[in-house]
C-alpha cells in the first residue's frame, strides 16, 4: 500500500466513524401515549418531562383501548388546537385548563369507563362551584370494580338533581340522614369503598 493510499484509507475510515456517531434523533413512530403527552404538556413548564409523561401514561393504563383510540385522538387534537397560553404551570408542571375540550374529555371518559358521564358532570359542577381541579376529580371517576363503578355513577347521576355541595375530604358529617342528598346510594358507595 502506498503512503498516499494509506492516508486516504485513514481519512475515509475516520469519516465513516464520524458518520456512525451522528445523533439519530428519536427512532420510534409516535404511540398513543406520545400523542397524549404531546397534547397535554404544552405549558412549557420547567419540570415537564416528556419521557416521564409517556412512562406514566403507559404504566397508568392511559393508553386507550382500541375502541377509544378515535376519541383519544379527538381529545389530543383539541389540546393541540389550543393556544399554549391557556395551559398554566403549577409546581413547575403543566396543568390542563378546566374549561377547554370538555366535550372531548367527557366522550373519552365515557368510552374508557362506560356510564361515567354523570361523574364527569358532577366534577364540572365541583370545578365551577368549589374550585376543584377537574383532572383530580376526573381521576376519581376511574374504578377497578365494575359494581362499585355502577353504584358510584348512579350516585353521581342522582346528585345532579340537587344543588352542588362544596365539601372537603374527611369533613365530619353533621346533617341528619334525610338531609343528605342520595343518602342510600351514598351509603352503598362508602360500603363499596370498604368504609
Amino acid at each position, binding site marked *: 500500500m502506498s503512503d498516499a493510499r494509506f492516508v486516504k484509507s485513514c481519512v475515509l475510515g475516520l469519516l465513516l466513524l464520524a458518520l456512525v456517531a451522528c445523533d439519530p434523533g428519536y427512532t420510534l413512530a409516535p404511540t398513543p401515549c406520545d400523542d397524549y403527552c404531546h397534547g397535554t404538556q404544552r405549558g412549557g413548564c420547567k419540570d415537564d418531562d416528556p*419521557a416521564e409523561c*409517556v412512562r406514566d401514561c403507559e404504566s397508568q393504563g392511559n393508553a386507550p383501548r382500541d375502541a377509544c383510540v378515535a376519541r383519544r385522538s379527538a381529545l389530543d387534537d383539541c389540546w393541540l388546537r389550543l393556544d399554549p397560553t391557556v395551559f398554566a404551570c403549577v409546581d413547575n408542571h403543566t396543568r390542563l385548563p378546566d374549561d377547554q375540550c370538555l366535550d372531548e374529555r367527557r366522550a373519552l371518559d365515557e368510552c374508557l369507563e362506560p356510564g361515567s358521564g354523570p361523574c364527569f358532570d358532577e366534577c364540572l359542577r365541583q370545578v365551577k362551584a368549589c374550585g376543584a381541579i377537574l383532572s383530580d376529580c376526573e381521576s376519581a371517576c376511574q374504578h377497578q370494580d365494575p359494581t362499585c363503578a355502577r353504584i358510584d355513577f348512579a350516585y353521581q347521576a342522582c346528585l345532579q338533581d340537587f344543588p352542588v355541595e362544596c365539601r372537603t375530604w374527611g369533613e365530619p358529617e353533621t346533617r341528619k340522614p334525610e338531609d343528605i342528598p342520595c343518602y342510600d346510594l351514598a351509603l352503598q358507595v362508602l360500603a363499596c369503598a370498604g368504609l
Partner: protein
Amino acid sequence: MVAGRSRQRWQWLRALSLVAATVCAARTAAADDSEVVVVGQRRATGQGFAAEEVREIPGALSDPLRAIEPLPGVTPALSGVPYFFVRGAPPSNVGYYFDGMRLPALFHALGGPSVVHPGLVESVELFAGPYPIEYGRQAGGIVVARSTEPASQARGEISLRATDSSALIDAPLSEATTVTLSGRYSYANPILQLFAPEMSVEYQDYQARVTQRISRQTRVSVLAFGAHDSLTRRDDDGKERTTYGIDFHRVVLRLEQVSGRSSWRVQALGGWDHSLARDGSVSVEDTLTETRADWQYVATRELTLRSGASFGADRYGLGLSAVDDPNAARDYAERFPARTETSIGAYLACDVRLGGVTFTPGVRSDIYASRGEHALGVDPRLSAEYRLNRHVSVRSAIGVAHQPPSSSIPSPGLNPTLAGGLQRAVQHSYAVRMRLPAQVSLDVGVFQSALFNLTDSIGETRARENDPSITETTRSLGWSRGLELLLKRSLTRDLGGFLSYTLSQSKRAVGRLEQPSAYDRRHVLSAALGYHWGAGISSGVRGSFYTGIPADVAYAEAARNPPRTTPYFRLDFRTEKRWEWGERYHLSVVFEVVNTTLNREVLRKSCDAYDCREQRIGPITIPNLGIEAAF
C-alpha cells in the same frame, strides 16, 4: 528505492503480525532507553503531562491531576466535575495513585484543587487500560501521580488565591535527610455565598515527608498525607445538611534499595477514611493497613523480572443513628455493613526483548475475603512494543483486570461488600506513536474493552428509568470501543499546544435492556495553544468540545439508539506575568478563567416522539487570580 519500499512493507507486515501473534500491546509497555527510572523501580509509560507543562495548560489551574481531563480516552461526566469515564469504565472503576498508594479522593469539593499539593507532583500519567501489572484491583483505568524526588537544595512555593492558599517547603536538613512539608487551606465561603448563600464549604489538605538516605543504595522514608472536605447547605427548614463530607489520612513507611542488578521496595501503610452520605445522616469509615513489597531484577539486557506482593486489611464501620427512614437504613446496612475485609495479592512480570520487539507478559492474582465470602481475581496481561524506526513505534496490549464491587461515586470508606462477586474487565488496545518534526509527537490508537458483572449505577441510569426491577445494585455488562488521537508539542516551548480527540462508543446491557451508557459521548475534543511573548509574559487558550449524552426516553426500543443532548463547548484562558531573580527565585501573577464564554451545559434531556426538553446547569465558570512565588 525498491529495496527501501520492500523493507518498509516488511516492517509494516512485521508490525501487523506482531499484533496477530501477541494479540497485545502497550500502554503498559516497554522501557524506553531515554526514560527516567524511579529509584529501584521500572517505569512504564502512559499518557500525560510533566508538572512544568501542567502549569501552562489553560483551565488546569496549575493542578497536575486536573491535566488528565483533556487526555484521549477520558470522557467527563460534566464539565468541571472531577468524575471521569475512562474508555467507558465508570468513575468508580478508575483508580488514582500517588506514589503507588491509592488516593481515596482526588479533588476537593466544588471542583476544587487536588488533594495533593501540585509542587509535590513530578508527573501524572493516565493508563487507560490495560495498565501496568504492579497496579491492580481496578476494572478500568488508572491515573498515576509520582512525587518529586527530595530536593538537593532548599526549595519552596507559596500560592495565594481568591478561594484558598497553599505552600510547600522541601529542604535538606543534612546530606542524608530531607524534609518536605506542604498543605492547602480554603476560605472560599465569601465567594461561594455570593452565588449560593445557603452553601458553606471548607477544605484542607496536608503532606509531610521525611527521607533518610542510609547508604548510597538504601533509603528510608515516611510520608503522611490527608485531606478534609465539608460542603453543607442550610435548607428552608433551617437544618444544615452535608452535601459532601470526607476525611482521609495516610501514613506510609517505606524502605528502598538499589543494589547492582536488583532493586526492591518494602512499605507499610496505615490509614483512616471517613465519609458522610445521605445529607450527612450516614457515616462510614474504614481503618486500613497494607504491607507491600516490590522487587525488580535486570537479568540481562534482554530480560528484566519484576514481582511483588501485598497484604491488606480494612475494618469498616457504619453509623446510621441519624437516619430517619428505616428503609434507607436497611439498605445501607445491607450494602455497607460494619465488617473486616482482607485481601492478598501478588504479581509476576518480565520484559523480554526479542529482536526489535519488547514483550511484557505478566500475571497478578488477588484474593479477597469478607464476611465468609471469598473472591479470586486472576489478571493475565501481555503487551508488546515494536520500534519501526527512530520515529515510529507500534504498541499493543491485552489484559484482564478484576475489581471488588464499587459504589456509584467513589468516596472514602464507602465500599460495598463482596456480595455479587468481582467486576471484570477485558481490555485491548493498539497504538502507534510517532515523533514528528519540530518536537511534535502524535499518538493514534484504537481500543476496545468489555466489562463484566459491572456495578455502574451511573451508567445504568437510563436503564433503571425504563425498568423498575433494575436497582442501584443490579450488575450489568458493558463494552466500549474507540479511536484516540493526541498531537502534542510541549507547552513549555515558546509555542506549544496539543490536540486531543476521542471517538468512542460505550454501551450497557442490563437484563433484556441494551443501550448506551448514560454518559456515552461520541466525540470528545480538546485543543490548547500557548505562547511565550517574552518579558516573562505567557498566554494560553484551550477549547473543549464534546457531543451529548443519551436522552431519557420511555421505550426500551428507542433507548437502544436515543437522541443526544446538545453538544457542549467551553473556552478556557490563562495568562501569566513572571518575574525572575537569578535562577532560583521567581514571582508570578496568574489570571485564569475556566469557561470564559459562560456556556451552560445540558444536564439531562427527556424526549418523546415529538419533543425533547433539556435541563441545563451553570454556567460553571471558575475565575482564578493567583500569586505564586517559588525559590
